[in-house]
Structures are given as structure tokens and as C-alpha cells.
């Protein structure tokens, strides 16, 4: 039986009521529609990519056999598709939150969405029917040597990635513009005076940017640099495609590619933070405000996200040694803002609170756990002595699946159910929560443990056919993934049921 939600009174999406009410109902409805388009598209792509992911694990388990060429095409699509899915969903969510804080032109957001979807379409075309299979990393010169696909497929893939980068950059520019407009300057948007002249700032009656505004600012600044890197490597590889005599330095290409890939994958979780800042206080019935430690933490994240990528090149001994040292140091440092400020603050808000445990809050809270556990796996891998034995083993997908699947996706689902619960004024029945929780988290644990166990045993990643103990471990990991997807399907049915009910809640 569904439970009626007792609304707390102090916050809606992290904003006071009067702030939301400054938006006209039509504008609010329109902004919410745009947000749902981004989020739903992200979730739909996730569902398709998850099926591809399970198919790959089944191939590695030896349950099915479709050959390495198809496997690597699927691997390529799965990698690009999943990051695009998580980026789309979190971009939609953070756009909506910033829209609640200030004016944002929806046409620009639709253009950004259009570019990204055109890019996704081009990538799909490159894989089916193009058979492109150089993985999302497309490390130069792999797309051009020994390829089992036609050159046009390489071109379609690179153009697709560049279109995604263009859409992403448009979104970043728009968001950064909105934040700067709201706070007057980049200096104020970053909370400079709030941090360094706090007393004068407070006495002047000024308000620092919201917590979610910091997340948006970091995502848009780092996102612009990331998008630029994506376009640079895309142009370089396209130039080589049309003029093979034009050579590229492989080490330079690897650095740019991983800078692009590492940052964009990590930014999805920092964007999802915006939902956490809103969701946790709301469910816990406690308020959460910007503080100096929070502002400083986001400054740290702004830097660390960009510089930790060097750990992807630990096994390139030709890389300058100083960069290897930086890779380990910045990887460690990148954990500090997360565990000392964001996650610590969330735990403080939950501790001995009147937390309402609904599907929305369970997903968000479990997402925090996934973030921490994935982070532990990542830190071990970022320690060079361990990396000697873990680099490019299944330990790598182990930790990034933990914080993308067990972190970002759960934050997305938490946000979706939070919105649905507010809309209907009700939460799901306890039995359904237990069913979804058991299937999703139980299946997810088995699926993820498979990666960790095989990674620690040295099984290389990206193998269509794995050495022992890979196939055995892949068998129970596949079962876990299927159980998890069944749980998510149950959650989907519940979400559709809630979305089609007559609105009764505050966001009706």
C-alpha cells in the first residue's frame, strides 16, 4: 500500500518556496518538461546500453558466442553510450536546478541536446552497420591500423564524438553564463569574497552561491576544457583520416584522450551531486547551506578532476616522471572534497534525523555508498605499486562501474523518484521498496564483485574471451546483472505507475 508523504516545509529543490514562485507556472512546467526530456533520454540510453553490457558479460562467460569483432563494436557503443546516458541525465537535472535560480534560454538547451543526440546517432551508425570497434578510447593509431571496419565508420565515430563535445560545450557555456549573470561575476560565482572576506560579505547581507550552483560551476568550467580536448583530438584524428601522411604523437594523443575521457566521466558524478545536495536535506527534514568548507572543496574538485587523469598513463614509462607523481598525488587529493565535505555532510544530515525512507531517498543514500566504495577501489588502483598489477585488468571497470552504476545512476533514479513522490504526494509501498532494493542492490553487488575478483586475479579488461578465472566469474556476474536489471524493471514499472497517476503533490 502506498504511503502518503508528509512534506517538510523548508525546502523544495534546495530553494525556498518564494524563489520557485518567482517562476511563472508556464515557465516552471516548460523547464520541467525540458529536464524530463534529458533525464528520460539518458535513462532510455542507459537501458539499451545495460542490455549490451549483460550481453558482453554473457559472451565472456561462454554462454553465447558472436565473435570478437561484434564484441568490440558492442564494447565501443556501450562505453560511449553509458557516459552519454549519465551525462544527459545529470545535465538535464542540473540545468533544471539552475533554471530555478535564474533565467536560461530553453532554445539553447534544446540545441545542445540536438547536437548530443546527433553525435549519439553518428556513433550508433559507426557501430551498426559500420562495425567500428576501437573502444571509446580510440587510442591513436588504432582506428587506422588493422581495422576490421571501413574508413567511413571511423569518420562517423569521430564526427559523432565531436558533435557530442559541441553539445556538451554549448551546455557548459550556457550554464556558466547563467551562474555568472546571477552572481555578477566569476569571482562571486566561485565564492571568492565569501571565502576570503567572509565577515564583510556576511555583513553586507550577501548570499553565497547555492551548493548546487558550485556543482554547476565546476561542471561547466571543467566541462569546457574537457569539450575542447575532445574536439582537439577529434580534429587531429580526422585530419589523419583524410591525410594519413600527417602523423600524431601517440603519447600526446593518449594524454589528450584520457584527459577528455577521465574528466567527462568524473564530472557526471559531480553534476549528480547537485541532486544529492537537494535530495538529502529534503528527505532528512534538515536544511543544508553553503559553507566555506563546501566552497573550498569545490575549488579543489575544480583542479583535481583535471589533473588526476595522469593515473591512466602510469604504465607509460616514457611519460615525464613528474606527471606520474602528480597522477598519484592528485588522485589521492581528489578524494578529500568528496569524503570530507559532500559525503560527510550528507551523513551528518541523515544521522538521528527524521529521514523518510522512500525509493527516492534509498536510491540517493545507496548512491553515496556506491560512490565511497567505488572511490576506495579507485584509490587502490591509483596507488602505483598496486597499479602495476591492476592496470587494465577488470579492476578498472570494477571501480568505475561501482561509482557510475552504484553512484551516478542511483542518484539519477533517486532524483526521478523524488520528483515523482512530490508530484503524487505518495511514496511506494514498503514491500515494493524491499523488492526493488533486494533485486537491485543484491544483483549489483554480485555483478560488481565479479569485476573486482577477476581484476585482482589479473584478468585483463576488454577481452572477448578471458583467461581463467574470467569465464567462471563472468557467469555469476551475469546472473547478478540480470537480477539487478529485473529489479530496475520493477522500479521502472513503479515509476510509470506514479508518473501516470493523478497529480496530488506540491509539484502537480
Amino acid at each position, binding site marked *: 500500500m502506498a504511503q502518503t508523504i508528509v512534506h517538510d516545509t523548508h525546502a523544495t529543490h534546495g530553494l525556498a518556496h518564494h524563489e520557485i514562485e518567482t517562476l511563472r507556472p508556464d515557465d516552471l512546467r516548460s523547464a520541467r518538461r525540458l529536464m524530463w526530456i534529458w533525464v528520460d533520454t539518458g535513462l532510455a540510453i542507459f537501458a539499451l546500453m545495460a542490455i549490451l553490457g549483460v550481453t558482453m558479460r554473457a559472451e565472456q562467460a561462454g554462454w553465447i558466442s558472436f565473435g570478437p569483432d561484434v564484441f568490440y563494436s558492442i564494447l565501443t557503443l556501450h562505453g560511449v553510450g553509458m557516459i552519454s546516458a549519465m551525462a544527459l541525465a545529470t545535465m538535464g537535472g542540473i540545468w533544471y536546478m539552475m533554471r530555478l535560480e535564474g533565467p536560461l534560454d530553453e532554445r539553447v538547451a534544446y540545441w545542445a541536446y540536438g547536437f548530443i543526440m546527433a553525435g549519439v546517432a553518428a556513433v550508433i551508425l559507426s557501430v551498426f552497420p559500420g562495425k567500428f570497434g576501437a573502444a571509446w578510447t580510440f587510442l591513436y593509431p588504432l582506428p587506422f591500423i588493422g581495422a576490421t571496419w571501413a574508413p567511413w565508420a571511423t569518420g562517423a565515430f569521430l564526427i559523432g564524438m565531436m558533435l557530442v563535445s559541441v553539445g556538451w560545450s554549448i551546455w557548459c557555456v550556457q550554464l556558466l553564463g547563467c551562474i555568472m549573470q546571477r552572481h555578477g561575476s566569476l569571482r562571486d560565482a566561485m565564492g571568492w569574497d565569501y571565502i576570503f572576506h567572509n565577515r564583510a560579505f556576511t555583513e553586507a547581507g550577501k548570499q553565497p552561491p547555492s551548493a548546487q550552483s558550485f556543482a554547476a560551476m565546476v561542471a561547466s568550467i571543467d566541462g569546457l576544457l574537457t569539450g575542447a580536448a575532445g574536439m582537439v583530438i577529434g580534429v587531429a584524428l580526422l585530419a589523419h583520416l583524410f591525410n594519413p601522411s600527417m602523423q600524431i604523437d601517440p603519447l600526446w594523443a593518449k594524454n589528450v584522450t584520457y584527459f577528455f575521457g577521465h574528466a567527462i566521466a568524473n564530472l557526471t558524478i559531480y553534476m549528480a551531486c547537485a541532486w544529492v545536495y537537494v535530495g538529502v536535506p529534503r528527505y532528512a527534514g534538515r536544511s543544508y547551506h553553503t559553507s566555506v568548507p563546501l566552497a573550498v572543496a569545490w575549488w579543489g574538485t575544480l583542479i583535481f578532476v583535471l589533473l588526476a587523469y595522469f593515473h591512466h598513463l602510469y604504465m607509460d614509462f*616514457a611519460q615525464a616522471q613528474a606527471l606520474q607523481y602528480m597522477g598519484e598525488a592528485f588522485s589521492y587529493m581528489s578524494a578529500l572534497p568528496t569524503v570530507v565535505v559532500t559525503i560527510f555532510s550528507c551523513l551528518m544530515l541523515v544521522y538521528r*534525523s527524521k529521514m523518510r525512507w522512500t525509493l527516492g531517498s534509498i536510491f540517493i543514500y545507496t548512491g553515496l555508498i556506491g560512490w565511497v566504495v567505488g572511490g576506495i577501489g579507485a584509490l587502490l588502483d591509483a596507488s602505483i605499486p598496486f597499479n*602495476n598489477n591492476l592496470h587494465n585488468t577488470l579492476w578498472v571497470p570494477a571501480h568505475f562501474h561501482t561509482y557510475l552504476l552504484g553512484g551516478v545512476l542511483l542518484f539519477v533514479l533517486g532524483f526521478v523518484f523524488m520528483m515523482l513522490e512530490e508530484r503524487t504526494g505518495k511514496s511506494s509501498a514498503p514491500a515494493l521498496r524491499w523488492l526493488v532494493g533486494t533485486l537491485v542492490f543484491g544483483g549489483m553487488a554480485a555483478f560488481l564483485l565479479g569485476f573486482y575478483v577477476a581484476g585482482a586475479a589479473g584478468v585483463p579488461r576488454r577481452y572477448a574471451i578471458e583467461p581463467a578465472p574470467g569465464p567462471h566469474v563472468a557467469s555469476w556476474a551475469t546472473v547478478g546483472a540480470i537480477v539487478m536489471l529485473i529489479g530496475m524493471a520493477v522500479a521502472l514499472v513503479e515509476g510509470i505507475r506514479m508518473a501516470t497517476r493523478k497529480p496530488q503533490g506540491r509539484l502537480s
Partner: protein
Amino acid sequence: MARGPLVLPLFLVLAALAIAVMIGIALSTRASTLELSAVQGRAYALRRWWLSALVVVFAALFAITIPSFPYLKAAELTTAKHVPVTAVQFAFPIPAVLPVNTPIVFDVTSKDVNHGFGIYDPENRLLAQVQAMPDYVNHLAVNFTEPGKYTVRCMEFCGVGHAYMQATFEVR
């Protein structure tokens, strides 16, 4: 040294600790409710301690791990036996026999795309690895202390034959 087997229990212990703390905090919501102001003071004091502890742990980890960095090892071995390896899609041309208890430096490069040169010991544990990159030579220092059959596997995705790209050699 193969640290793979060590890392899993370490990860599981740390993850279990983190999960236990977070579940404990979730369960605390069943107890009597406290005002946020009553929690904040202690929490902020705890946070200062937590930050200090993490900074110390990370700084110590960084210092402790530096001697295990593999980058200078090859240069230090001035009398080592050098074994050139030029990886190619999808094979590692490598001598069939290598000496036991002898410092060896593999001079690893690639003729075509990026590969990974991963050495597995006779118990199938990943012993050491380095990237094989066109236009660059990476020097990997290894001293095989146990005789037996070793396997080299590709550790960087290199195309449709990636999973089949391996070689074996005997250490005696």
C-alpha cells in the same frame, strides 16, 4: 611482486568498514531524533579530525609508495640483460628462454598500435607490465626468481585479436 591477491582483501575490508558506518548512520534514524544544531558541533569537530587523518594517511601512502615506483628501476640496472620486444598486432616476438635470478630489462615498443606487455608468472599471477607504444621505448626491469613457464598477455586494447595476443617463455 604480484600484489593482485593482496588488494582484494584490503579492498573488501575497507569497503565493508565504509558500508557498515553508512548503514549504521542510516539505522540511527530509527533512534530518537536530534536537532541538527545538536549534531553539528560534534560533527564539525569530527570532520576536522577526519580531514587531518586523511591528509596524514594520503601523505604517508604517497611517501611509502615512491620507492616502489617502477620508473627508475631500469636505469639503475646498468649490468642487466636487455631484451628488445617489438609488439605487433597480434603477437609478442620474444626469446623462448630467459635466465632465472638475473636482472632483465625489457625494451618494449610497438610496430603498429598501442599494446600492453603484461607478464604472468607460472601461477598465472600478473607479475609486471608496461605499455608498448609506437615511437617510444619503455624499459621494464624484472628479475625472475622462480623458474617455470611465463605468459605474456596484451594489456591494452589493440584490435580484433586483442584477447588472443599472447606469448610464452621459459625461465630457467
